């Protein structure tokens, strides 16, 4: 009996790992064998934007391994992944290998795999900021150059060429500055945080925490909803039911802002421009910007998901980057000034 | 076996209370060195309770126990073992996926480092001494049930047991295996071990036991020397009434059937477990399948019911060819089947008596036509009364009923479907004498009402009493068909044993 159980479990683990690999290879958009077909000029569809074949003609493609979060994580990530795929295309002289996971250990494994495969460049957007030392050292030993994008990692600077990141702290500062500029009599803030410990959460929380500490703003509640819309709704509902008054909702992404607004709607609390409660979100999904345009929300901040071109330029130029940390330009939109053109240009997703 | 012989185990004035029931009241039991002592009684008489008190599963609520004249307290099974009291249960409680040696030493190895070789050597030595046909390195599950049981006994012997309790050890063994077990018991007896033997098989009591202690309703009826207590009287003491009922009940008159009356007919029917065989049964006939365990008798009737995967053969019901591949097919054609292993294939333990009774009928009525609660209750009440099922209520989980009453519930389940043909595989195994008689009577009554019945029992006596025709199987083949004057113990034995075939009808 016990033996049977053990073998069952083993079979299960095997099935799971099979399913896992099945999913990642299916879910990712890796084109490992595109290199071989490239010689015959049969290009796969999505690279039509630039002139064809110069890279193929020059022979060797630059092998780039990208360790990223899955595009399904958020609209931001989706745009980010699409950007990577477009820039590091075969037409531009790259052979792109990708691995997408939300889990740090799976990401570490993938990075390890890319090192073994012998890529020329390793591009990483880490799920967590810790645990990367060993892998990056191995990459260095193998002569692989590492670029971080979107998210920082807690390692010695010498282990990577450069980090192209959004300055999340600046993003938070911009948003909080905007809030201060509204000149409210008092600030009673419901602060809904993202997954604790993520870069975005830390950056977006920091500026607000300063205001709480200085007493300029009053913290009604500060809870994490781990990017979960439904959880955000519950948090706001709980505050409404407790009878405490509040006039600002600062949600660290659009989805959670949407959840919070759903709670407000059910309780009959007005929000947006001219409403009782100011609603702030982040990420600039197109649908969220449309809420701004409708004046249902007040503010949406963005960190740019487009880092690929900067990294590509660095690789192609061959020069050492001027600084270890390269900051992407950030934006913030106000409901009173946003235009349809802004949505079309900067909005993510559909 | 003299009276003055040294008494090994003495239990005096044992009492055991359960909420609302006095399970044992003032029971005495004495076991002497080197004797086999049968503990007899109907189900619920208190045999298992007494055993459980002795082995520390239950605490006694009064009375004392002494071993070798020393008063002892038994608070747990471990205590019992330390005092040299070992039990081998009806169901094998060893681990079938470990080796024989591992099973013999499991749980009593004193260090973490297990020296397999040493243990295997020691196990082989014990097995050899006791003449048990097993190797220490064999996986236990690959041994026959009898050998597994003997390994359990060997384990007990190696633990220096003085008192060995065998609880229904023979119920799943065939005659040959029983004999080997008895040889082992005699051997142990010679070494001075006292054996308490609990069984339903009266013949076996007379074959091996020196003394008999009879319990009834939690009270001691008496202790007797086997040779001084005739079998009929033993039964009388167990059920506590005179034997008019028993004696009035022997033999079935020969009935004659026309071929036009054939209800069920199979030719070269075979399944994954049964070799091809021919079989037919008339309306209102009671026939039996006999043979040793593993002779294919159960497998054959399972094939009739479609319980195993059917491989081939043709089946006719009332002359019409039909297909029976699954139990539901058989049920739709009016066939019912009471399985051999009640626990595994019969009862749905956690469900109530009511739900167990209506189950088969409900399946036949179909998924979308449930029997209403009130209907089900009246069905249950009716059969609880008709079959005299002893249960607290119709909502009691069947698992908490005694074996005999569980069997009656399963019988009720099939009777409720009003079958034309009922297959009963060992309906009387492990149940008390009174219920056995009731079931036998019921079978004959069903036949009178025109129901065909196939009856299988390990007790040939019982089959001779109920069946008008016996099909004898050996090594998965039908080797004979007995009827009329041939229906006697000797002829059946001869046919089972082979040699002079009794095929002439």
């Amino acid at each position, binding site marked *: 009996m016990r033996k049977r159980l053990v073998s069952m479990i083993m079979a*299960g683990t095997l099935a*799971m790992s099979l399913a896992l690999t099945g999913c990642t290879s299916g879910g990712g958009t890796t084109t490992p064998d595109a290199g071989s077909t490239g010689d015959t000029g049969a290009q796969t569809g999505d690279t039509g934007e630039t002139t064809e074949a110069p890279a193929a003609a020059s022979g060797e493609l630059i092998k780039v391994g990208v360790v990223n979060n899955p595009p399904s994580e*958020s609209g931001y990530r989706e745009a980010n992944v699409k950007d990577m795929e477009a820039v590091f295309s075969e037409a531009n002289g790259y052979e792109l290998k990708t691995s997408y996971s939300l889990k740090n250990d799976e990401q570490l494994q993938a990075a390890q795999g890319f090192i073994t495969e012998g890529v020329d460049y390793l591009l990483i957007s880490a799920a967590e900021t810790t645990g990367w030392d060993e892998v990056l050292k191995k990459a260095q030993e193998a002569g692989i150059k590492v670029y971080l994008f979107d998210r920082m990692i807690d390692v010695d600077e010498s282990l990577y060429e450069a980090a192209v990141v959004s300055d999340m702290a600046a993003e938070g500062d911009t948003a909080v500055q905007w809030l201060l500029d509204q000149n409210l009599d008092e600030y009673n803030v419901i602060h809904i945080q993202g997954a604790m410990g993520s870069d975005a959460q830390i950056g977006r929380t920091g500026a607000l925490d300063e205001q709480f500490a200085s007493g300029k703003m009053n913290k009604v509640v500060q809870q994490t909803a781990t990017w979960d819309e*439904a959880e955000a709704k519950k948090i706001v509902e709980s505050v409404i039911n407790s009878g405490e008054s509040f006039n600002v909702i600062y949600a660290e992404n*659009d*989805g959670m802002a949407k959840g919070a607004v759903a709670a407000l709607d*059910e309780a009959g609390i007005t929000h947006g421009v001219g409403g009782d409660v100011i609603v702030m979100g982040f990420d600039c999904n197109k649908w969220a910007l449309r809420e701004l345009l409708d004046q249902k929300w007040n503010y949406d901040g963005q960190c740019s998901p487009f880092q690929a071109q900067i990294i590509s330029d660095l690789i192609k130029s061959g020069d050492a980057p001027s600084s270890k940390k390269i900051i992407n330009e950030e934006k913030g939109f106000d409901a009173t000034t946003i235009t349809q053109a802004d949505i079309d240009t900067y909005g993510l997703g559909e | 076996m003299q009276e003055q012989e040294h008494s090994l185990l003495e239990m005096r004035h044992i009492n055991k209370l359960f909420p609302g029931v006095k399970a044992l009241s003032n029971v005495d039991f004495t076991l002497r060195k080197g004797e086999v002592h049968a503990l007899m009684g109907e189900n619920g008489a208190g045999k298992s309770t007494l055993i459980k008190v002795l082995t520390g599963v239950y605490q006694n609520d009064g009375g004392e126990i002494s071993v070798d004249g020393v008063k002892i307290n038994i608070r747990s099974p471990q205590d019992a073992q330390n005092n040299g009291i070992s039990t081998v249960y009806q169901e094998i409680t060893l681990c079938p996926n470990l080796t024989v040696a591992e099973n013999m030493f499991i749980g009593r190895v004193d260090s973490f480092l297990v020296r397999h070789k040493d243990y295997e050597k020691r196990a082989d030595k014990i097995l050899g001494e006791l003449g048990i046909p097993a190797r220490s390195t064999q996986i236990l599950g690959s041994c026959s049930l009898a050998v597994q049981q003997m390994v359990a006994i060997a384990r007990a012997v190696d633990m220096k047991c003085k008192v060995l309790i065998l609880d229904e050890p023979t119920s799943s063994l065939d005659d040959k295996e029983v004999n080997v077990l008895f040889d082992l018991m005699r051997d142990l007896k010679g070494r001075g071990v006292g054996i308490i033997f609990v069984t339903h098989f009266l013949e076996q009591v007379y074959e091996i036991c020196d003394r008999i202690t009879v319990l009834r309703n939690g009270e001691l009826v008496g202790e007797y020397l086997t040779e001084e207590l005739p079998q009929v009287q033993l039964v009388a003491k167990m059920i506590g009434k005179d034997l008019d009922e028993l004696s009035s009940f022997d033999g079935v008159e020969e009935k004659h059937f026309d071929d036009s009356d054939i209800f069920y007919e199979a030719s070269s029917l075979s399944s994954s477990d049964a070799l091809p065989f021919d079989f037919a049964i008339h309306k209102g006939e009671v026939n039996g399948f006999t043979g040793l365990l593993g002779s294919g008798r159960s497998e054959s009737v399972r094939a009739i019911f479609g319980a195993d995967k059917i491989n081939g053969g043709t089946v006719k019901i009332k002359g019409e060819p039909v297909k029976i591949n699954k139990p539901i097919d058989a049920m739709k054609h009016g066939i019912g089947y009471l399985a051999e292993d009640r626990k595994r294939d019969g009862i749905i333990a956690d469900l109530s008596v009511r739900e167990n009774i209506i189950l088969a009928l409900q399946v036949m009525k179909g998924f979308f036509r*449930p029997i209403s609660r009130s209907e089900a209750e009246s069905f249950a009440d009716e059969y609880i009364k008709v079959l005299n099922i002893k249960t607290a209520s119709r909502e009691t989980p069947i698992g908490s009923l005694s074996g005999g009453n569980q069997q009656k519930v399963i019988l009720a389940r099939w009777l409720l479907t009003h079958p034309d043909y009922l297959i009963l595989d060992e309906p009387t195994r492990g149940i008390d004498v009174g219920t056995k008689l009731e079931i036998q009577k019921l079978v004959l009554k069903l036949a009178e009402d025109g129901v065909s019945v196939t009856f299988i029992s390990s007790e040939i006596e019982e089959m001779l009493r109920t069946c008008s025709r016996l099909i004898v199987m050996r090594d998965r083949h039908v080797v004979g068909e007995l009827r009329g004057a041939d229906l006697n113990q000797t002829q059946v034995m001869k046919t089972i044993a082979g040699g002079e075939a009794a095929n002439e009808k």
Partner: protein
Amino acid sequence: MKNKITNIFKGGFGQLTIPIVAICMLVVFNLFRDPSFFSVGITHNNDGNIVLAGNLISIINAASELAVLAMGMTLVTAACAGQDISVGAAAAIAGSAFVKVLKSGPEITGFSVILAFVIACCVAMIFGAFNGTLVSVFNIQPMIATLILFTCGRSIAYWINGGASVPVDSPIIKAIGSFIPGIPVPTPVLIVILVAIIFKLVFHFTSLELFTQSVGINGNASRLNGINATFIRLLTFIILGVCVAVAGIIGVSRLGLINHETLLLDVEMDAILAVAIGGNNLGGGKFKISGSIIGAYVIHMLTVTLYAMKVPSTDVKAYKAIVIVILVVIGSPVIKSKFTKFMTQMKNRKQAVSMKGT
């Protein structure tokens, strides 16, 4: 009064004792902490409807998806002696399918919502049948069989819509996810009641309950009584599929948004817990759907209580775990038998005393 209480402990509610006691304890605790905790108010929502509001409404409203899933999970547990851990992922798939159908039309109408609902149900039933086939035909343990969909379900959900979070905006969706104009009770609560009634009717008009229990308790015997155990097990998974679709659609409609990464995240564990708290044996066999529903409300009452106490949501899971461990241990057979033993001893002693008295 005293008698009644002891009756409850002696199993006056039978299987439901534990969940009912748990919910009572939480209610008492909350009333003690904040007497106004359960006050229900009436407000106008932003669409101008009169609606009920308050913690009690929040609890039964937020527990809706879980309650629906727990009902289906109870059946699977009973028949298969195991649980489906892919319900969260499957709900994301069903929700994505629902949104996909809505988005493929020019506008969202009553008809397109019904069509989307039917298609989402079909999709979830197909995935349920996939799980069910692995379990019933190939005899794979349910947790392991459903591990496959658990692992890749949310990726499949992503492929359906492509985008990360796709909004659906329509008064009909809003009516499903929050309030129907003119009805002050949240629609998800009504859906739970409707699903519960449907289960009740199914049990009344079919033999599903008896057959499921039989198969779960003794598959062999059930087969020999003509029950098609394979089919029954498969059926329970398909029924769970419908529950999954309903839960997924409630989740999507609540926010007018599908986010396959976060929709009903970790709900499978809560659903299994609801079944366990409801006093159902996770090893299969006898079951009570009502127990699981109460179990779902217990879990959410606990969450809302903790939120109201401003326990950091990162710690909520730990507190939940503590309470659940206590509940499950109290409900374990070991403690139960100890308790009955204790009660009979007390009773005997009392009798002895009263006998002495006379």
